[in-house]
């Protein structure tokens, strides 16, 4: 596709590759054409008609996003007809919209609001045809308010194109057209992985995370509660975006300071349990390999990672036959909750009944995960409240703290120390890399044979990646692995996960270890991260993650001093009795839909 096309936009020549749209060509000239249904991560729809332009010799106004650039085309983006059509489209959308902006969670970060402002549209130009919709608050993760939906179908395309879930689909024709679910059931009822990718791409307030900001303030304000907070690795490379920093800024130290100032009693780090996950999950993998290769047992291999709750729920719904292949390790968030209410409570002399564990996650699925009934191994609900990066942003703004001028500080000890291996959990391929850094050293006594510990082959943004590591010079205990080639695969985005899961389900997977992250780019592109999202933004967050890794003193999970200490003082050994109780879990076969007689 090297063919070049030259066209004129607003009388300026521009040359683009064949396949480019008029919108692409205009962007190349830095001419802004407003869009609503268009999103760079998903296929073109051409539905909203906000991007209409004038094309010479055409009576109609084509949609720039859906019109291929053609040789000799003459386009005008700012004629009277174009402005009037756009204005009418926006007015029509407002006539169907719940215009209660002041009470909308997305107020100030809404693409429709922005368009209405730019085009000075009066909300009452046409008669209101807003219908009476209830707000679906059934899911612990995602809230759906059809009264704010513009039918751009970005969520539908996201759910289908990126995630292969299709929990959201279009129903009804004409005035009854809306974004719906299977048989118009509530979100908690249908096959939804809670990944929140739809939320990340919703231009308005129709799809938002279920927010728990008031619950967190309530816990902080309650003097009888001891409130501890954990933050996931991907939060620190994205939080800055909602607070006026450049995309890709690392704000770890400031984030810790602000959490202390917000009133949390202890500020810990999910990275600590990410390191712990590596120890547990790495040993689990080695155990499976031993049993298979040394003892010849029929052990489920490859082993899938289990950190991503969107992936877990997807597997429970769509691939129940491979649940035994999933690592039994809880996610770092849940390991943290279980340890905070046991190990930390014991050390600090706090009654776990009075403790509130809050997590700040790049993820909406974590809200569901924390609410799983089995996540109570401490004797209490292990994690009480999950807020997203965006919700923390709101809390910081509400507090009036000047975030950008804060000094930096470190997490509290006991559950706060972490290594670079934990930080890279936030990027696709990171868990794989962290696991290799540890497992290779356990088996050979030597560091992984990659320069500066950077295992480049597992990094990147390709949807499915594979790599292999040859194990040489094993310690005597692991002699059966000598010369073995460990085959690895990584997928992010559930549409890619499906390919690897399907291989396993059909018994033809060539791999030993597979990392899956539900969201594009991994957690850094999670459903709880700042909006907007696109490849450029995700790449910048990824760069920040890897530079954070390189900046740290310890870069291998087994070097984390607090991890070493917790095994000495509390857990005793990986996969031990206590680990089994607190750090491991089981999965539930969920089927394609729940029984209909609810």
């Amino acid at each position, binding site marked *: 596709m090297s063919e070049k096309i030259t066209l004129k936009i607003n009388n300026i020549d521009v040359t683009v590759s064949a396949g480019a749209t008029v919108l692409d060509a205009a962007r190349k000239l830095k001419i802004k054409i407003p869009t609503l249904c268009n999103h760079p991560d998903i296929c073109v729809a051409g539905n909203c008609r906000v991007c209409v332009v004038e094309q010479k010799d055409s009576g109609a106004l084509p949609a720039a996003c859906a019109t291929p650039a053609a040789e000799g085309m003459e386009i005008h983006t700012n004629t009277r007809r174009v402005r009037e*059509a756009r204005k009418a*489209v926006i007015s029509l959308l407002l006539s169907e919209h719940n215009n209660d902006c002041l009470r909308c969670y997305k107020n100030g970060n809404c693409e429709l609001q922005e368009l209405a402002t730019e085009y000075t549209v009066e909300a009452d130009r*046409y*008669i209101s045809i807003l219908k009476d919709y209830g707000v679906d608050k059934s899911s612990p993760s995602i809230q759906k308010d059809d009264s704010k939906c513009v039918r751009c179908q970005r969520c539908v395309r996201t759910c289908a194109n990126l995630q292969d879930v299709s929990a959201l689909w279009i129903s*009804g024709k*004409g*005035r009854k*057209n809306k974004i719906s679910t299977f048989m118009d059931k509530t979100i908690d009822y249908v096959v939804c992985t809670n990944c929140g990718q739809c939320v990340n791409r919703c231009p308005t307030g129709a799809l938002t995370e279920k927010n728990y900001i008031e619950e967190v303030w309530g816990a902080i304000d309650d003097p009888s509660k001891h409130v501890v907070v954990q933050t996931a690795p991907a939060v620190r490379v994205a939080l800055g975006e909602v607070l006026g920093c450049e995309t890709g800024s690392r704000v770890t130290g400031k984030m810790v300071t602000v959490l202390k100032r917000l009133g949390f009693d202890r500020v810990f780090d999910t990275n600590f349990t990410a390191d712990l996950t590596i120890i547990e999950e790495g040993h689990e993998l080695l155990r499976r390999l031993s049993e298979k290769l040394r003892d010849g047992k029929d052990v489920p291999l490859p082993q899938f990672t289990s950190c991503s709750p969107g992936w877990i729920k997807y597997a429970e719904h769509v691939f129940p036959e491979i649940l035994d292949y999933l690592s039994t390790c809880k996610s770092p968030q849940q390991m943290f909750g279980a340890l905070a209410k046991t190990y930390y409570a014991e050390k600090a002399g706090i009654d776990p009944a009075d403790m509130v564990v809050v997590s700040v996650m790049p993820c909406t699925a974590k809200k569901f995960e924390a609410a799983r009934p089995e996540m109570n191994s401490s004797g209490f609900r292990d994690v009480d409240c999950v807020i997203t990066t965006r919700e923390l942003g709101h809390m910081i703004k509400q507090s009036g703290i000047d975030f950008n001028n804060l000094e930096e500080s470190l997490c509290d000890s006991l559950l706060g120390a972490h290594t670079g291996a934990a930080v890279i959990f936030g990027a696709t391929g990171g868990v794989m890399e962290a696991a290799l850094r540890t497992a290779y050293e356990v088996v050979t006594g030597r560091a992984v044979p990659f320069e500066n510990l950077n295992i480049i082959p597992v990094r990147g943004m390709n949807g499915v990646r594979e790599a292999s590591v040859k194990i040489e010079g094993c310690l005597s205990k692991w002699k059966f692995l000598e010369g073995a080639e460990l085959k690895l695969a990584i997928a992010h985005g559930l549409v890619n996960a499906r390919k690897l899961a399907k291989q396993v389900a059909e018994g033809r997977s060539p791999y030993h270890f597979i990392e899956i992250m539900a969201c594009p780019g991994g957690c850094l592109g999670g459903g709880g991260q700042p909006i907007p999202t696109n490849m450029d933004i995700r790449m910048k967050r990824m760069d920040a993650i890897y530079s954070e890794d390189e900046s740290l003193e310890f870069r291998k999970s087994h070097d984390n001093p607090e991890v070493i200490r917790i095994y000495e003082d509390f857990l005793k050994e990986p996969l031990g009795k206590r680990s089994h109780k607190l750090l491991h879990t089981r999965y539930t076969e969920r089927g394609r839909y729940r029984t209909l007689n609810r």
Partner: protein
Amino acid sequence: MDSSTRERRIAEHKKRVNLIFKKCVWDDFLDRALEMSPEDMLEKVKESGLRGRGGAGFPTWLKWKFAREAEADEKYVICNADEGEPGTFKDRAILQEQAGKVLPGMLVCAKVIGAEKGFIYLRGEYAYLLPALSQEVENFNEKIREKGERFSIEIKLGSGAYVCGEETALIESLEGNRGEPRNKPPFPVSEGYLGKPTVVHNVETLVYASIIISEGPECFKSLGTSDSAGAKVFCISGDTDLDEGIYELEMGMTIKEFVELFSDGDIKAVQVGGASGHCVPRKKFADTIIGFEGVPTGGSMVLFNSSRSMYNVLHNYLEFFEEESCGQCTPCRIGCQQLLKGIEAVKSGEKPSEYLDDLVKLAGMMKISAKCGLGQSAANPFISIVEHFREEIMY
């Protein structure tokens, strides 16, 4: 003039044509057609001046030429029998009585473009035609297989959405998806069913193609006008004192001639082309030609006499569109609802009559910015009725 007299007059009328429904023996048609080269067939269709009979009037030969020139391993011919335009019922009759002329039309098209597979997309409500039509298709497939042809036809049933008459929505539906129009370009002739070059034709177009190949382009070209060659099957309904029905007439009549033929004279408006067509008021009857140079129609001709409220007529059409818009694009989904709400509000006095001017502007915007033909034409009855019968909408 009593109705039987008029029926006789119509039967003898100089514009009356008998091509499609003529009883004739077509046994040797296939042999004759299959002897012809695709180039010859294309040339004959080009010479005839045949344009699409669904209403849009795209030159048939050009569609074939584009699909013929498109490079692909598979190509498809689709017979659009999703006849849903209000006031149109000709395809039903053609398929019932003359399916034997439709299927060869598909074969001819397939030979020209190089397709081996054809579909008849049959309107869901026409399911009762299925047994007879299936038998006909089966026999036809068998017959051409014996002649060594690889082409075969399959019938697929629609599910009742008006929008699936739009060719790209039809293709989506045929692929098993929700029936929603696609962006154009690419047009189906380059990327249609399963992404392959596809020609979608109205039932009537295919019949005329058969006739042109069988009897030569002259029989068609000699009729009609230069822009609108040939004849057309019209569906007459509304205030006619005849039985509502189907008449094959030469193209290019004025509406005045038409009304004189089919009514007792008390007609104040004719809706040409169904719900998505134009309403022509009496004062324009004499100088409005039925055809591509005047008002085109897919066949529907609805006559309204002086007892009819044009508000009710328009209200009915807008209710139809508010429901039958697929709903994906903003101008059509919300525009149709606004036009309906708008005339109700003006009628009831909630909005001043000037609000109609805002709505006319809105309708104009729908015409130029909607995604597909449905949305672009949904505003037609509104624009023409408000222009000519404004008082009836207001009071």
